[in-house]
Every structure is written in C-alpha cells, then in structure tokens.
C-alpha cells in the first residue's frame, strides 16, 4: 500500500483479504485477536438487528427501517478505525457504527419506536437517532447536508488546536448533490481534517451509479478539489480499516481531507418501503452474496483459529436475545409526553409556543397514535 500514498488519487482497489483467503501483509492493519473478535461480533450484531427490524416492520410494529445488509464491512470498519476523540457525521444507514461507537442498543431501539426514552423524543423517523456521548452526529434525511457540517466541525477542531477528525458518511447518490461539491471544495481549500467516506453501494433507491456520474470512479472526483481519493474493497473489513486509519492519521497530522470510495453493494432494498425487484435483476445481486463481508471475514478468522462454530452460535444467540429484550422494553415504553412537542424548538419557548402548548393540552386528543 506504500505504493499508494494518500497524496494523489488512484484507480486501484485496496484489498487485504486475497481471493485465497489469506491477508496481504503489506496492507493488513494487524488487529489483535481481541480486536478481530470484537469487530466480527459487531458486524454480526448489526446484521441480526437489521433482520429483526425488517421483520418488525413487516409485522407492522415499527413504521420503517433502513438497513445495512451487505455493507457491514464498510460501515463497521470505518467506525472501528476512528480514534476515541474523533467524530462521526452519519448518513442514515450506519446504525451499526453508532452502536460500535457507544450508542446504547436500548436507545437505538427506542428510536425505532419513537417512544419516551428515544433520545430524539419521538420527533424523527426510525433510524434518525442521535448520540452526542458517542461523538456521533444528528441525522437528517436530506441528502448530503452533513458533509459541509463535518467540514466545519473538523475545521473548528483544528482552529481550537484539537486534533480530532470528523468522518462523514454518504452514499454514491450524494456525490451528485451540490453539498458534495461544496464540502469537498471547502475541505480542499482549508485542508480540514475531514474523512469523506462514500459507501458506493451501487444504487440510490432505484437509480444505478451510471445515472449519478460519468466519472470512471467516485474517488477520482477528489482530483477536482485537491483532495486525494482512494478506492477500497468495501466488503473487506480489514482493508476498510487500513485505508480509513491512514486517512484519519493524515488528517490528524494536518495534511487535510481524504475521499474514500468503498465499493460495496446494497443487497437489500433502499429501505423497508422499497422493492428492488421492480428495477434490478436478481442475477445482479447473486455475485455480491458470494462476496458477503461477514462470511468473508469469518473464513479469515476461522483460518486464524480465533473463531469457532460455538463462538458463532453463542454470538448469534446472544445478539438475538439482546435485540429481542430491547424491543420488548421499547414496545412497552409510553410515547413522549405531549409537552415535549414544544421543547427544544428554542432553548426557552417564546410566547407563541407557550400558547400553542396550552392549546394542545386543553384541546381534543387525536383518535390514536397510529
């Protein structure tokens, strides 16, 4: 990987796990056994939660879920590469990363139900959680708006002599937004310690990457802004860690931003509201199932002799039990109090919100929550 310095953009795709299953020692981030097991467990937990939440939505118990099936290596590997002091600016598909960084599972599941314990007080759709204590940003649905914010945040850190780095997530579709251009341009001009992490998962709802860009690669877009771009096998968690670590270290050294294009695939629909069979051939999906990032990583751990069948059974049973328990608690938790509707619009409610709160409280109640 030394042949790919992070000062320019390359087309080559960085990989650690070779086709024969052995790691490339030149790129291997060299995780300890404990780290390897923790990382693998987080990936499996993410998938177990994803599957459970899709089921809940199908059963009508939650309204929506936007999953990360097939993208676990890109999502978990990048978050794993951050240092404690670094910050994440998520899109809406990275709950697994937030959990890894310290979002309590119960709080995440509370968000799926929008109940009284939801950290965003039931004000946002599922998967729009927040967690400041995990140094994790607040999520909005508009595409790309978090990018210039991650630039400003990292820039502020540098101005305050803090070597924290901000990593921002976005999909291939977001590279078409004005926000991508604006944020990359500011990051280039001011050399902000920002890591742009593009999950190139092939699809923006029903629109394939060919309709997002005529560029040969997404990483190549960095050239226009003076920001080096690097392409990484997004289904190879060790490669994602290696590349992200280098970008984080580079940013922390004051050398500026990096654009990472993680090549992965959205195996599921865009969200539970989407049916990908309407616009893509199942034959396109099959090869990606072969490259499943979790299976691939498990084969590697098995070969290293640090993961057994019984480890796998224990992990899955435990993850399933934990998510079911969290769901049971969240489902029984009351909705937010009516008064909370008017909190946090401003630090203190002005007269008009005080009046509208009184109007709501004395008025008739809506027929049912849903």
């Amino acid at each position, binding site marked *: 990987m030394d042949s790919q310095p992070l000062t320019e953009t390359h087309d080559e795709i960085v990989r650690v796990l070779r086709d024969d299953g052995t790691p490339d020692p030149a790129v291997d981030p060299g995780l300890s056994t404990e780290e390897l097991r923790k990382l693998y467990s987080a990936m499996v937990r993410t998938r177990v939660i994803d599957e459970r939440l899709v089921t809940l939505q199908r059963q009508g118990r939650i309204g929506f879920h936007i999953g990360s099936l097939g993208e676990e290596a890109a999502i978990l590997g990048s978050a794993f590469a951050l240092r404690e002091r670094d910050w994440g600016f998520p899109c809406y598909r990275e709950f697994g990363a937030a959990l890894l960084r310290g979002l309590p599972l119960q709080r995440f599941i509370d968000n799926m139900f929008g109940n009284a314990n939801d950290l965003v007080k039931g004000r946002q759709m599922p998967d729009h959680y927040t967690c400041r204590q995990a140094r994790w940003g607040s999520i909005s649905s508009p595409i790309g708006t978090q990018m*210039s914010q991650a630039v400003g945040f990292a820039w*502020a850190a540098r101005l305050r002599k803090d070597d924290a780095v901000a990593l921002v997530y976005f999909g291939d579709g977001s590279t078409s937004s004005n926000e991508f251009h604006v944020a990359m341009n500011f990051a280039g001009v001011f050399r902000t310690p920002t890591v742009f992490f593009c999950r190139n998962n092939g699809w923006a709802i029903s629109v394939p990457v060919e309709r997002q860009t005529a560029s040969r690669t997404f990483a190549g877009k960095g050239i226009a802004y003076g920001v080096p771009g690097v392409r990484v096998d997004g289904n190879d968690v060790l490669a994602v860690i290696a590349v992200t670590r280098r970008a984080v270290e580079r940013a922390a050294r004051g050398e500026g931003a990096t654009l990472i294009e993680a090549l992965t695939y959205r195996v599921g629909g865009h969200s539970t509201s989407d049916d990908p069979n309407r616009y893509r051939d199942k034959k396109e999906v099959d090869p990606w199932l072969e490259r499943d990032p979790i299976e691939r990583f498990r084969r590697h751990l098995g070969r290293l002799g640090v993961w057994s069948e019984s480890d796998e059974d224990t992990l899955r049973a435990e993850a399933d039990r934990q998510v079911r328990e969290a769901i049971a608690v969240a489902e029984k938790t009351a909705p937010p109090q009516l008064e909370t509707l008017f*909190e946090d619009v401003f630090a203190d409610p002005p007269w008009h919100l005080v009046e509208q709160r009184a109007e709501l409280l004395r008025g008739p109640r809506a027929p049912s929550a849903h």
Partner: protein
Amino acid sequence: MPQMNMVQAINDALRVAMKKDDRIVVLGEDVGKVGGVFRVTAGLYDEFGDDRVIDTPLSEGGIVGAAIGMALYGMVPVPEIQFADFIWPAYDQIVSELAKYRYRSGGEYPCKMVIRTPVGGGIRGGHYHSQHPEAHFIHVAGLKVVCPSNPYDAKGMLLAALADPDPVLYFEPKRIYRAAKGDVPEGEYTVPLESASVAREGRDVTVIAYGAMLYEALDAAERAAQEGVDCEVIDLRTLWPVDIRAIEASVEKTGRLVVVHEAPRTCGFGAELVSLVVERVFFHLQAPPRRVTGFDTPFPYTLEMEYLPLSHRILPALLETARA
C-alpha cells in the same frame, strides 16, 4: 458618547464581542482584507487574523453548512451572506438543518449562530440586491429574525443575538447603513431581543414598521399629524418572536392598524401581524387593518421608488384608516 452610523455600530459590536469571546469567528465572501462589500467587517481581519475573519469560497450553502459544523463543535460562527438575495443556496442548510438541530437531536445539539445579511431596496440594486425576505425565515420553526433600524439598536441587538442560545438571522437594512446615525455607547451593552420600541407615541393609528421603512413610517406620521391624525409608530426590531404585548397594547389604545413592509404583500409578514391583531384584539378595532407593502412583483430596478412603500404611499393609508 461616540456618534456612529449603522455600519460602524455593527462593526463595533463584532469587535467588542470577538475580543471577549474567542469562540466567535466571522466567515463569508470578502469579509477579510477588504472588510466586506459594505465595510461592515472592516479592520477585523487585521485585528483578529485569518483564523477568525475568514474569506471563504463563493458558496452560501458552504458558508452556512460549515458554520453549522463549527457551531456543533462549540464555536460561535457569524456567517455573512453578502446580500440576502443570495441566501437561497443556503436555504436548505438553514431550514433543514440549522433551524431543526436542537429539536431533532432532542436537545443534544444546540446550534447557536448569528447569520448577518444586508436586506432591502432603494439602493438601485434591482432584483438581486434589494429583497427583504423575512417571511421565508419567520415561517420556519426554530429561527429568530431581527432587523434593527438605528445604530444604538444595531449594536445592542447584535450583542444580544451573539449571547442568545438560538440561531438568529440578523437583517441589516442597507439603505440606512450610513444614513442612520446616532449615539452609541462604547463597550458592551445589549438591547433585549423580542422587545419592540415605540418610535413615536400617538393616539389615533398604530403603525408597525421595521428597518429602513421605519423612517418612511415616521415621516408619514409627521405629515399625518399636520392633518390632525396622531399616529403611534412601533419599531418591531425583533420580527420573530414578535413583541406581541407591545402590539396589543398599542392597538388597544388606537383601535386602528397599518403595517408597513418592503417585501411583497401576499403571505408577507404583514399578513401574520394583521392576523394576530384580528385574533387577539378584534373588539378594539374600529377600522379594517391595512397593509402598505412592496407589490407582488419581482423587485424592480428603474421604478424601485414606486415599488417601495415610502411615505407618500403610507400617508393616505394612515389618513383613510384614521377616518374609516
């Protein structure tokens, strides 16, 4: 006490605040060495340096987006949008992000900043250097919108806005940037947000105005006085959250209301002010409320003085309302 114009008063407020609080940074287009196209930030670059008075790439969305990131970190950014007419590329960041941050994060991420921008016509600026877009922002939950009309208020309200925990849009009426002069105390003082002032006391008609149009309203009120109509002119100062008590008290006294603003009439802020008065003090009203505003056209160039609700258009509305 030194005499200042609006430009000097705003500049002085920024200097006073930046000296006291090193979290405050100014960023925008041409705010650095040249001191802003209206010179509002003149001298700040030399005094505070490139890290606190920052010339940015030409992108309003980037300026506000980056400022939001800075605010989330804990700094107090003061982005300048060179003309309010150019704020629209930042509208998504302001509406979808800035206004909602505290709310959507359950209070975890307050997003405090003051966005400064010159507003209003009468400077031969045509469509794109003249608009007064307050209604677009007042309609968005989570934003405070202010528009001072004199140097004393300009400094005191900017210092109050910088101390406020919520995002504030600070509209600077550029037609009176240099025309409005007055005594401005040195050092620190604040004019509380959400408080209107009575610019002229009167018994017969309440006139609500703000920014540059305050002076047109005052001129019309003087001319109305010569015809025996005694107007009370309220300078709103903070547009939202509006000082509703001041408006109620005045209309309860006069029973008559005329609202003046530069922006187009339909769905303009005057519509909200009239609705509030009708809903709250209807039984005190003795005449239909009136609006004297810009027309529902794009802002014109050659005929801008015909478009603006100047004194000559306000006066007949005052007399007719007084006699209705």
